């Protein structure tokens, strides 16, 4: 695993504009950064990252029925009791999931360690599955990368296969908060893949979703029978339309039971059940802010996103915290795992997280994120990768 400088394609911004990838720059700072890239060898991809991803996915799925069967665990994960049956029904009906992304601390030699699961509303899908793929093809064609270079990225192929095999009513509607260009880009990419899979698809800004007689409906008043939503389940349960879920017959992607696996409470549950597993970090439920955090631990709310509200104390005892809106517990603490550190051209440190995609229960590819700090956030740069021995 090496970080290498590489000249960006001259027209990459035009290509981004053509595909609606308008969030390649966030608040004036580059988000998509192809002035560098990561190189993995085949052993790292196939023996370590791919294997660890599928192993961890299996362990996570095995937790779902156990949590659903235990009021104590549902309570520890702060799942509202009103929806316990709703979640359990979606699991027992085998409502299919589509995708997820797990974030791994990986340095190229030691076993990858699970930092967290993004199993409900994972993003960076378009840049991982499409834009990164084109980068590789074009850089190989231009001779800038070896002809034998490959990429761990069958994301789009597996998405289309997954949509082909999903048994869902049509049209399949796609919805997100429309004024977030990143969320919209990710949602439209999925809509595109579903359309390529032959499904009848429609897009609906989330604030246009209506309720009528206990059913979700579109702008023309017609019932919506199947809905992909890039919107967190824990928000939906807490909002005005939450109770409509209990009367509606709408099928959702991700299905309701995925709420459990996007909850960071799964980290201590996994550790309790598989203590010492090479891909897991020690984790426990935690009393939360205001209590002391020992050196070498990281505290996170069970419901949080984009690195918000994470409090970190490294082995030297130095403290780092990211503020954010997720101020309600419960909390977990996880053993601090130093991220691999690389040096940018100007000598400043770069910390790297490997996002590993799971589509249809299979490891499907990678998206690498870099940050100048050890906490990866929504502004962390996305950097492409290739495989070559």
């Amino acid at each position, binding site marked *: 695993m090496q970080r290498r400088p590489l000249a960006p394609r001259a027209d990459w911004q035009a290509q981004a504009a*053509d*595909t*609606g990838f*308008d969030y390649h720059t966030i608040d004036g700072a580059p988000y998509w950064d192809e002035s560098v890239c990561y190189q993995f060898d*085949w052993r790292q991809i196939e023996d370590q990252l791919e294997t660890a991803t599928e192993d961890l996915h299996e362990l996570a799925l095995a937790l779902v029925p156990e949590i659903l069967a235990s009021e104590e665990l549902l309570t520890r994960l702060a799942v509202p009791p009103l929806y316990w049956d709703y979640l359990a029904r979606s699991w027992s009906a085998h409502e299919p999931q589509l995708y997820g992304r797990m974030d791994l601390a990986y340095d190229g030699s030691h076993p990858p360690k699970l930092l967290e699961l*993004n199993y409900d*509303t*994972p*993003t960076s899908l378009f840049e991982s*599955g*499409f834009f990164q*793929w084109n980068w590789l*093809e074009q850089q190989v064609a231009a001779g800038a990368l070896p002809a034998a270079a*490959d*990429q761990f990225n*069958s*994301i*789009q*192929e597996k998405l289309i296969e997954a949509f082909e095999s999903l048994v869902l009513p049509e049209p399949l509607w796609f919805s*997100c*908060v429309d004024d*977030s260009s*990143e*969320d919209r880009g990710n949602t*439209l*990419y999925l*809509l*595109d893949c579903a*359309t*390529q899979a032959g499904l009848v*698809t429609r*897009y*609906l800004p*989330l*604030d*246009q*979703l*209506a*309720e*009528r007689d206990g059913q979700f*409906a579109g*702008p*023309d*008043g*017609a019932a919506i029978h199947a809905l992909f*939503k*890039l*919107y967190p389940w824990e*928000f939906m349960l*807490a*909002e*005005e*339309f939450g109770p*409509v879920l209990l009367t509606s017959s709408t099928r959702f992607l991700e299905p309701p039971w995925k709420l459990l696996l*996007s909850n960071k409470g799964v980290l201590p549950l996994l550790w309790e059940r598989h203590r010492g597993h090479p891909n897991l970090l020690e984790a426990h439920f935690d009393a939360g802010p205001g209590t002391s955090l020992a050196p070498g631990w990281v505290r996170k709310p069970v419901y949080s*996103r*984009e690195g918000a509200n994470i409090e970190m104390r490294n082995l030297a005892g130095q403290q780092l915290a990211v503020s954010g*809106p997720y101020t309600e517990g419960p909390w977990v603490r996880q053993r601090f795992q130093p991220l691999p550190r690389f040096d940018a051209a100007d000598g400043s440190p770069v910390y790297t997280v490997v996002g590993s995609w799971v589509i249809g229960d299979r490891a499907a*590819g990678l998206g690498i994120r870099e940050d100048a700090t050890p906490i990866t956030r*929504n502004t962390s740069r996305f950097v492409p990768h290739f495989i070559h021995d």
Partner: protein
Amino acid sequence: MSVRARKRSRSSTLIVMVPATTLLVSACGGPNRVEQGVVYQDAAECSAQNPEASEQCSSDYQAALAAHPALAPKYVSQEECEADFGGERCEPAPERHSQGSFYMPMMMGYLAGQMFRPAPSPTGAGGIPPLRDGQPPAAPAAASADRAQPLYKSRDDQRTFRTAGNAPVAERSGPVSVSRDLLQPRAAGLSRRGGFGATATRLGGTLGG
């Protein structure tokens, strides 16, 4: 050395996202029989354009008005109703809830179906187009509630007449071609919008992770 299995997709194309703005909601089409109908604001407008059919105009209008309280979309508050239909364009509905009355939009027009076909006016202005089967216009049939229904106009689009189910019907009065589905009035039920997204508004930014 054995040949390695490729780790990346064989191809990668986009069909909807290129160019970025073309897609989105194509109208829900489908093979749907088209029928002739007429749209008017009220009986007076209908009679002015079809003087020989003023009795029919009146009975269709009354039929739509009678169906309006049952078909109109209902809101738990006047504010919610006006958010969709505009200020002073809502009225109390017959139903009541624990905190007071439901509200519904006022009827802004009506749609009458195929059986409503008076003879073209002598001047030829504003009349009904010739029938497709070439038969002479029949005498107006008796009005009945199931072939005249109320129409509404949303706050953000004051031109378009819409059914209680929010389906657009016409942008001006007169004859229209509508899908047969639309001629079957359906109640809008208790309708609400925007019940998801509040947390996003509160937190701002992007919600994926």
